[in-house]
């Protein structure tokens, strides 16, 4: 599954396939974290704003 695993064989199909997989996983992780961090920041900021009122 990982390029450092001994079972990894350097062949184009494997790079394409696993590359696509990792791209998808990374995209999903980025999206989730992006949204979570934005939400977290919103929460903090809003609080501040609210408290200043």
């Amino acid at each position, binding site marked *: 599954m990982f390029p450092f695993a*001994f*079972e990894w*064989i350097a062949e184009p199909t494997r790079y394409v396939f696993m590359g696509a997989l990792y791209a998808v996983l990374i995209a999903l992780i980025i999206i989730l974290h992006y949204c979570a961090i934005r939400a977290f920041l919103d929460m*903090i900021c*809003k*609080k*501040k704003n*609210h*408290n200043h009122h």
Partner: protein
Amino acid sequence: MSTTEEKEQAVAENEQAKGGDEQAAEVAPVKPGTWRFLIPIAAFALGFMSHFSLGWVILPPILYAEKQQPIDFSHKLHVDEVGDCEGCHYFREDGSFSGIPELENCAECHEEAMGEDPEEAKLITEYIEPGKEIPWLIYARQPQCVFFSHAAHVKMGEMDCAICHGPIGDSDHVRPYQYNRLTKYSRDIWGWNIAGLSKNGWDYLKQADNSGEIKIEHAARMKMDDCAECHMEKRGTHDACFVCHK
């Protein structure tokens, strides 16, 4: 969603505001809310540290159980006497490896006590006289799905015993046999470093080439990827499954 979104957001903010007010009332003395975000962070840090140390420090020793060998055997003494490993750990005629000597081999010399060592006395009274095989605990025993050929490695590959087994020939005492509570496999198979990152015997040997002195502290790890790594290096192929599996 978007049709109702704004409205809902408004509602939510309203709710939030209410919550905030309550908070403010309760912890009024200090500037409320400015440090509040530290609560989850502190909780996170606490969780991280506790489990980090759990994983690195607390669990590893619990994972392994320990047994003592039936007899405290001195390899050094015997190597001095016999000369080399093959004297006791020999190849049979069919090319298979004898492994740990049977009682018969021990009895060849120890029919009568040769010295005054209490361990030798134990060997004679508990095993040789009643003719009971010694239940040695084998550090390097592989799982049943593995086929390992000593002939291929020692005879063809010309590898030294110490590469995999470590400098066991220099030891005066046998070390305790540690095994994984879950798998029941010897700890020597997976490697002594809990991270599984311990260096292999051949790495030590490479070092030795450079420094001129061999420093193999433990046996090599003997998991599948270690086998494959060396095979790749030496044979240029990972080899088919059936080379090592049965």
